[in-house]
C-alpha cells in the first residue's frame, strides 16, 4: 500500500517538469512507496499556498530566494532538493541588440513580472545598474517585445524564446541570468518542516525518485513522461518539449557543476551563502537570517542516480 | 338613523406639527359613534387628510391621543386616499382584489365580489386594464371599489368623488348610503362639496386652516336621504348654514 502524496508544480505541464513526470510514469516513486499526483500550476494557481494550507505535501519552489524569505517570515517551509542548478530565468531581446548581459542596461524597457521585481530585478539593478523606470509590467504576452525593437523581456529559457522564434521567424538573443551571476538554485522541492520530522522516508523517496526521474528523463527514453505532460497540457507539442529538453542540456540547467559528483538535486552551503550574500547586498533580504533553516542537505548530495547517466 | 351607537373612535386634543413648524392640526376633538356618517369640510390645506391619516394610525399625533373605546382599531377598515394609490403592475381587478388577498382569499374565490365592486363603480369593462390606461376619474373609482369590496365596518374616504362627474357622483353617493344602510358601517368622509356633505352625513365637522382646527360641528337631522330630502327646504337651509360656517372658517384663517 503506497502513500499518496501530491506535488504542485509552478506552471502548466512542460519540459521543465519532465523528471517528475518521468518518475511518476515509470514507477520510480511507486518503487519506494509513493503514489505521486502531480498538480500542475498555472498563471495564478498558487501551489505554494496549497502547501502552506496542507493540501499538498510537496511544491516546486521558484528559487533559493523563496527558501530565504520563508526563513525571514518564520514559515517552516524547507527546500530539500534543488533540481535546477541554474535559474532558467532569461532576458530575451531582438537579435543583435546586446553582446553581454551588461549591455542590456542600454535597452529602453524591460518587461518584468511582479514576481521578478521582488527577486532578480532588484539584483539586476544593484549588480548591473538597471533603472527602476526601465521596467514595464510583463503580462505573459510577448507582443510588446515584438513590437518594440529596443526592449527586453523576462522569460523562461525553454518557453519564451521558443514561442518568439516560432511566431516571428527570427531567433531572439537569450541571456541567462545564472550565467551573469544570479546564482540561485531553482525548481527546488519544498516541503513543510513537520513533514521532514515526521515522515523522513516519504521525503527521501520523493527526493531520490525525482533525481532518478530526471536522469531518466534527460538521458533515457522519455516518451511516457512526455505523454503525461501532453495529457496535462494538451497544448504542448513534441517540438516544444524537444526544444526545452535541449535547452536544459545545452545550458546545463539540471546537470552541471556539483551534480557531476553529488547527483541531481545537489545543494551546497557555499552556494546558498553566496547567493544570500548577494541578496543582502541588493537589499532584498536583511542580514543575519539563519538561512540554514530554509533548506536541508539531509536528502541530497548522495549521488543517487549517477549510475543512470550514460 | 345613527349617531346613537357606542363611541368607536375618540380624538382627544390631537395636535399634529410637521417638521416642528407647520401646525396641521391643533387640539382637535372628535367622537365618532358606531354607525355615524361624519363629513370633514374645510379649506384646502386645513388638515383633513392629516386627521384621516391619524385616525388610520399611520402616524402618531404630536400631542393628544386617539382612543378606540371598542378595543382597538378595527381590522376591516376601508380606505380611499386622496390619490388613487393603485399598484401600477396590477390590473384593475387585481388591484381591487388586494384587501381580500391580504386576508388570504384566492382570486378565484372572490372574483365575483371583485367584479361586483367594479360594476358598482361602472368599471366592469376595464377589469383587465392597467392603471396607466385609465382616466383620472376611473383610477379613483378603482380605489373606491377597492375600499368597498370588503364591505368594511369603518370607512375612511378622502375626497373620493372629487374627480367624478355629477351624475356618477350622485349614483355613488346613493350606493354608499345603500351600503351603509345594509351593513351599518361607520363612515368618515372628506369632501369639498357642501351639498354632498349635507346630503350624506349625520354630522358635518367644519374646519379652519393654519392652524388646522375644528370651528363648528353641524348635525344633519334627516330621516331619509333621497330626492325628497335633496329638494327640501331643510336641505337648502342646511347648505346655507354649512356654507356660512365655511366662509367664517376661511375668514378666521
Amino acid at each position, binding site marked *: 500500500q503506497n502513500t499518496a502524496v501530491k506535488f504542485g508544480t509552478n506552471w*502548466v505541464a512542460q519540459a521543465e517538469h519532465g523528471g517528475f513526470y518521468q518518475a511518476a510514469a515509470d514507477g520510480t516513486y511507486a518503487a519506494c512507496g509513493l503514489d505521486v499526483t502531480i498538480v500542475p500550476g*498555472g*498563471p*495564478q*494557481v*498558487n501551489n505554494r*499556498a*496549497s502547501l*502552506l*494550507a496542507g*493540501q499538498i505535501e510537496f511544491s516546486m519552489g521558484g528559487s533559493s530566494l523563496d527558501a530565504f524569505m520563508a526563513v525571514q517570515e518564520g514559515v517552516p517551509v524547507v527546500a530539500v532538493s534543488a533540481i535546477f542548478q541554474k535559474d532558467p530565468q532569461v532576458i530575451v531581446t531582438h537579435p543583435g541588440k546586446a553582446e553581454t548581459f551588461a549591455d542590456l542596461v542600454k535597452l529602453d524597457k524591460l518587461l518584468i513580472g511582479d514576481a521578478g521585481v521582488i527577486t532578480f530585478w532588484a539584483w539586476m539593478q544593484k549588480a548591473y545598474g538597471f533603472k527602476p523606470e526601465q521596467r514595464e509590467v510583463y*503580462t*505573459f*504576452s*510577448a*507582443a510588446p517585445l*515584438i*513590437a518594440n525593437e529596443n526592449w527586453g523581456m523576462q522569460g523562461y529559457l525553454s*518557453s519564451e524564446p521558443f*514561442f*518568439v522564434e*516560432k*511566431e*516571428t521567424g527570427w531567433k531572439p538573443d537569450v541571456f541567462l541570468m545564472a550565467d551573469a551571476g544570479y546564482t540561485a538554485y531553482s525548481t527546488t522541492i519544498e516541503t513543510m518542516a513537520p513533514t521532514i520530522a515526521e515522515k523522513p522516508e516519504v521525503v527521501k523517496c520523493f527526493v531520490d525518485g525525482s533525481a532518478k526521474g530526471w536522469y531518466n528523463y534527460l538521458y533515457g527514453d522519455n516518451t511516457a513522461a512526455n505523454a503525461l505532460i501532453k*495529457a*496535462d497540457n*494538451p*497544448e504542448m507539442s513534441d517540438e516544444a518539449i524537444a526544444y526545452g529538453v535541449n535547452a536544459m542540456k545545452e545550458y546545463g540547467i539540471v546537470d552541471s557543476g556539483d551534480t557531476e559528483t553529488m547527483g541531481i538535486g545537489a545543494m551546497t552551503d557555499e552556494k546558498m551563502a553566496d547567493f544570500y550574500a548577494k541578496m543582502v547586498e541588493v537589499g532584498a533580504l536583511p542580514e543575519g537570517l539563519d538561512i540554514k533553516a530554509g533548506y536541508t542537505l539531509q536528502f541530497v548530495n548522495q549521488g543517487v542516480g549517477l549510475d543512470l547517466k550514460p | 338613523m345613527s349617531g346613537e351607537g357606542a363611541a368607536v373612535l375618540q380624538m382627544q386634543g390631537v395636535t399634529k406639527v410637521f417638521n416642528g413648524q407647520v401646525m396641521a392640526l391643533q387640539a382637535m376633538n372628535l367622537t365618532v359613534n358606531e354607525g355615524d356618517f361624519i363629513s370633514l369640510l374645510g379649506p384646502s390645506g386645513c388638515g383633513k387628510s392629516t386627521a384621516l*391619516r391619524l385616525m*388610520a*394610525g*399611520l402616524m402618531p399625533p404630536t400631542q393628544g391621543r386617539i382612543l378606540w373605546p371598542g378595543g382597538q382599531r378595527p*381590522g376591516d*377598515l376601508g*380606505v380611499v*386616499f386622496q*390619490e388613487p*394609490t393603485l*399598484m*401600477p*403592475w*396590477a390590473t384593475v381587478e387585481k388591484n381591487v382584489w*388586494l*384587501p381580500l*388577498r*391580504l386576508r388570504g382569499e384566492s382570486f378565484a374565490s372572490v372574483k365575483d365580489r371583485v367584479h361586483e365592486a367594479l360594476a358598482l363603480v361602472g368599471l366592469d369593462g376595464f377589469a383587465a386594464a*392597467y*392603471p*396607466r390606461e385609465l382616466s383620472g376619474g376611473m383610477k379613483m373609482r378603482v380605489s373606491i371599489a377597492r375600499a368597498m369590496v370588503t364591505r368594511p365596518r369603518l370607512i375612511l374616504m378622502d375626497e373620493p368623488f372629487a374627480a367624478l362627474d355629477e351624475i356618477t357622483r350622485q349614483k355613488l353617493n346613493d350606493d354608499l348610503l345603500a351600503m351603509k344602510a345594509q351593513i351599518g358601517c361607520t363612515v368618515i368622509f372628506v369632501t369639498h362639496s357642501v351639498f354632498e356633505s349635507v346630503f350624506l352625513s349625520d354630522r358635518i365637522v367644519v374646519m379652519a386652516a393654519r392652524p388646522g382646527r375644528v370651528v363648528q360641528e353641524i348635525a344633519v337631522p334627516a330621516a331619509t336621504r333621497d330626492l325628497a330630502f335633496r329638494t327640501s327646504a331643510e336641505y337648502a337651509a342646511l347648505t346655507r348654514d354649512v356654507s356660512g360656517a365655511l366662509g367664517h372658517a376661511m375668514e378666521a384663517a
Partner: protein
Amino acid sequence: MTMVLETATPVDSDELARAQIARRDRIMRWLIPALAVVASIGAWALYVWAYDIPHYQLPSPARVANQLLVDWQMLGVALWVTLKITAMALGVAVLGGVGLAILFNQSSTAERIFLPYAVILQVTPLIALAPLIFLYVEAPLARVLICAWIVAFFPILSNTTLGLKSTDHNLTDLFQIYRASRWQRLIHLQLPWALPYFLGGLRIAGGLSLVGAIVAEYVVGISGTSSGLAFRILEASYRLNVPRMFAAMILVAVVGVLIYAATSALSWALLHKWHESAIRRER
C-alpha cells in the same frame, strides 16, 4: 396661412405615412447596429492591412475567424465550461443579492451589521482572497462559484435595496391599513416595486458574472482538464497564439452581449405593461 400640426395630408395617407415610418424604424433598429459591426470589422481589417500590422500584434479579422474555425472544438468546450459557470454564478448572485437585500430591508440591525462585510467582499481583490479560499474551500466548483459570486452579487444587492427602499409611501400606508404582514408587504408591494431596480442590477450583474467566471478561472483555476475561456486566452497569449487569443476574446464578447440582450429582453417582458422605463407610449 394655415399650418397643420403633425398631420398635413388627408387622413388615410397620414396613417399610411406613420405606419411606413414605423416599419422603416423597425428595420433600421437592426440594420444600423449590424452595419456598425460590419464597419468596425472592416476598419479593423483595413488597419491591419494598411499598416501591415504583424499578426502577433493584431491579427486580421479573417485570421481570427479562421482560427475560430480551426480551434472550434477546443474553444467550444472552453465556451461551454465558461457558460456553465457564468450561469451558475448569476444564479447565486441573484439569490445572494436579493436575499441580502430582503434581509437588510427587513432588519436595519442586520443591515448595519452585515452591509460593511458585503462592501468589503465587493472591494477585496480576488487575487488576494484566493489563498484563503484555497485554504478553506475544498471543492473546485465551490471555489469558482464563490469567486464569481463575489464579483457579481453587489450590483443586485445594491439596486434591489434601493428599489425596496423607494416603495411609494402611499401604497405602504395602504398596506399598513390593511394590516398586511411584513411578508405580505414584501411579496405584494416591495418586491414588485423593486423589480425595475432589480432588473437594472441584473443587467450589470449579468456581465459581471461572466467576468467573475473568467477571473475565477484565473484565480482559483478549474479542476482537471476542462478549461474555460480564461485559460485558453491566457495560454494563447503566453504562446503568442494571438489569433486564438482574439478568437477566445470574441467568444467572451459575444457571450457578454447575448447575456445583456437576454437580461434586457427579460426586463422588457416583465415591465413593458406598466413601468415607465419600458412602456412604449401610445402616440
